[in-house]
């Protein structure tokens, strides 16, 4: 019976010869050790990087040419071991066990060498050709750790290259060894204690001939069966499973601990021994980051700083955006007026050209001025390593509503974009936590919705109103979490989250990340926005918009909004910022406050902030939580948006009558 890992067939034959196809090289290592940074150094910025564990949740691939031959470079999500506990790690395991990899570049954070070596020893059990990359050597030196690459290479029987990927150091030397090394199978790892070795041999001897000739070495299969690895246990023969259970009982009786803990302990001790042989720990250089961290995680100052940071972030985004918007808008509006007078107001040509220009102007004057500073700010916080601290600070509060620690991270990422936020839920082990975190991440205002809040509410009503809306949103998110965790009660394993060291963000890396994210708007959304502007203008020209507005009139009437707003909500499904820009188009003015009251502006913003996620997010949700649950998210968000929108309308009406 062939091994099947998560529905993908793993042929139980040795890997095919590398001459017949492109060489596949996988970057494998523990989370946050710099795999994606190496990948981006070689391929160009294609894989999102950030200073927190779990920033890569999917496999990324890229082609690279070296010495005339092409190789496929694969960026694999970080794993602590090959016994996985969440979908992101499962994707990495699936890739490694399906034998499509000719060489593993095992990337280690040199400043956490002994912990990283535990995975190295496990990877060696796979027998795949390997190369060891000691990354972040600068951090190790700062911590006073001197590592002898020669001794480590000798001890492991593998080539070892030192790198500082963030500065591009050592990358060329690393890839120079790829071609030679991918023909050399990795040597067997050092043996474990006698009783564990005996148990492994016992299980290995029961594997059938078919299993023994597998791509996966018999020793690896046996050790994983002893560790009760669910994937391999489900696929092994009944005989092997029985033998593993017997060996496990014997081992546990002798050691008084569960077999998984015993084997992990063996790897831990083995890694420690190697570390002590190859590294010397001296006195670390004084690190101001520790003092800063004590302040930022302080039970009082930590929260004061968090609040100040949020306010500062908002003021910078709003200040820069409003300044740019005010200076750019007259230029574009002037050009639009010239187009109208040149082609004659109301002619088809004028409608077409002006609508194209209005689409261009909408992107340039309403979206980009706020989006660019927002993305830079977010990239700065991500690269700095502050987000896990936010998760640490917020965990206690969120725990009270039934949400658990690590769930905070995807929700925080939702402030950037809901799509990666939904994907980031893969770092959560529980299906229920993944679902709740996905729902909450879609309720958090992404950069597009923040754009609407800032460009509409802050611009026309004042920054305090916009801050109030952000605070109100947080309240709704917390309340939704409280409700959902009571509808789906479950005991969660609780927070276990690595909090990385602060890293000073590099301007070039931040710029590349911002462009990577901005490109989606420029390449996909902006043309869509221009096309939407043309469609809306033509619909208005031929009075077709009336039918759409009429269809939406029950909703717009309940919300107390102008009927023309109906069409803008349809465009908002494509991209959230389009509802704002289309509003300008639909109302026929760039000065919204002339045609909408303060109550209408706030009602519109609250509705747009919560109603149905954009199409890209819906697609991501279907992939992550399935169709049924996505339908629930759509229904729930529509219910929340309508209820809160109507409530806002009446609240403003009551206040106006007083």
């Amino acid at each position, binding site marked *: 019976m062939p091994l099947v890992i998560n529905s993908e067939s793993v042929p139980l034959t040795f890997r095919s010869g590398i001459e017949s196809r492109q060489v596949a090289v996988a970057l494998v290592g523990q989370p946050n050790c710099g795999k994606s940074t190496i990948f981006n150094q070689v391929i160009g910025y294609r894989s999102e990087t950030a200073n927190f564990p779990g920033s890569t949740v999917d496999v990324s691939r890229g082609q690279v040419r070296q010495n005339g031959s092409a190789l496929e470079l694969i960026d694999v999500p970080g794993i*602590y*071991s090959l*016994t996985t*506990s969440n979908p992101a790690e499962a994707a990495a395991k699936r890739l490694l066990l399906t034998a499509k990899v000719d060489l593993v570049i095992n990337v280690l954070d*040199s*400043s*956490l*060498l*002994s*912990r990283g070596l535990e995975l190295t020893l496990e990877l060696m059990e796979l027998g795949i050709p390997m190369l060891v990359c000691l990354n972040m050597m600068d951090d*190790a030196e700062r*911590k*006073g*750790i001197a590592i002898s690459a020669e001794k480590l290479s000798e001890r492991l029987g593998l080539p070892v290259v030192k790198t500082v990927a963030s500065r591009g150091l050592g990358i060329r030397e690393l890839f120079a060894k790829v071609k030679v090394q991918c023909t050399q199978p990795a040597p067997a790892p050092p043996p474990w204690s006698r009783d564990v070795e005996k148990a492994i041999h016992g299980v290995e001897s029961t594997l059938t001939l078919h299993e023994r000739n597998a791509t996966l070495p018999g020793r690896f299969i046996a050790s994983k069966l002893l560790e*009760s690895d669910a994937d391999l246990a489900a696929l092994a023969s009944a005989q092997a499973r029985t033998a593993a259970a017997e060996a496990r009982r014997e081992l546990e009786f002798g050691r008084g*601990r*569960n077999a*998984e*803990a015993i084997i*992990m*302990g063996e790897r*831990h001790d083995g890694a420690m021994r190697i*570390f002590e042989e190859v*590294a010397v*720990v*001296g*006195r*670390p250089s004084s690190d101001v980051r520790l003092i800063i*961290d*004590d302040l930022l*995680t*302080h*039970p009082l100052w930590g929260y004061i700083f968090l609040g100040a940071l949020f306010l500062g972030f908002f003021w910078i985004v709003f200040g820069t955006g409003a300044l740019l918007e005010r200076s750019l808008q007259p230029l574009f509006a002037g050009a639009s007026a010239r187009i109208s007078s040149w082609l004659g107001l109301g002619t088809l040509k004028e409608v077409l050209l002006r609508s194209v220009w209005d689409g261009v102007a909408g992107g340039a004057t309403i979206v980009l001025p706020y989006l660019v500073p927002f993305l830079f700010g977010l990239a700065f916080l991500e690269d700095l390593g502050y987000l*896990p601290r936010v*998760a*640490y*600070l917020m*965990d*206690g*509060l969120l*725990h*009270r509503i039934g949400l*658990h*620690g690590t769930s905070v991270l995807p929700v925080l990422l939702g402030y950037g974009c809901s799509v990666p936020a939904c994907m980031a839920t893969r770092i959560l*082990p529980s299906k229920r936590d993944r679902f709740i975190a996905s729902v909450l991440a879609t309720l958090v205002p992404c950069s597009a919705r923040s754009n609407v809040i800032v460009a509409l509410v802050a611009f026309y009503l004042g920054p305090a109103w916009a801050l109030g809306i952000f605070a109100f949103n947080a309240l709704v998110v917390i309340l939704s979490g409280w409700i959902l965790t009571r509808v789906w009660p479950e005991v969660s*394993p*609780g*927070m*276990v*989250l*690595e*909090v*990385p*060291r602060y890293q000073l963000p590099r301007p070039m890396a931040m710029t590349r990340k911002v462009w990577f994210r901005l490109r989606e708007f420029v390449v996909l959304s902006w043309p869509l926005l221009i096309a939407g502007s043309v469609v809306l203008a033509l619909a208005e020209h031929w009075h077709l918009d009336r039918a759409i507005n009429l269809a939406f009139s029950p909703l717009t009437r309940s919300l107390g909004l102008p009927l023309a707003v109906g069409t803008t909500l349809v465009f908002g499904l494509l991209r959230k910022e389009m509802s704002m820009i289309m509003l300008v188009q639909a109302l026929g003015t760039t000065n919204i406050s002339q045609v909408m009251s303060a109550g209408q502006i706030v009602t519109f913003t609250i509705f747009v902030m919560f109603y149905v996620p954009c199409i890209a997010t819906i697609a991501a949700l279907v992939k992550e939580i399935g169709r049924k649950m996505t339908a629930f998210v759509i229904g729930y968000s529509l219910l929340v948006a309508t209820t809160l929108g109507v409530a806002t309308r009446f609240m403003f009406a009551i206040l106006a009558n007083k």
Partner: protein
Amino acid sequence: MGAKASVTAVRKLPPITHLDRAPRRKWLEVIEVPQGRGASRSLAHLGVVVSERLRVRAVAPWGGPILVDVGGTTVAIGRCLASRIKVRLVRRDRAGDETCRS
């Protein structure tokens, strides 16, 4: 007299406590971790294993997580989980503990 001496001896033993009640900035040795597969695996992956030494750096308010320095890195452990980890105060630091072991 003899009983008094034995009481003194018991008092001198390094006290065992749970991680959520452990003093800050003191070196501690892990003597027991929860047996559940998920929790113990997550902890082991980050270096929180029996006989490993760690230090509580900060405790978040409102029942929030405990921030511990372990194996050269910092890990946030939920309060409930921390209450299931038994630790013992270590009287004298092992070589290397004062600086940082990787």
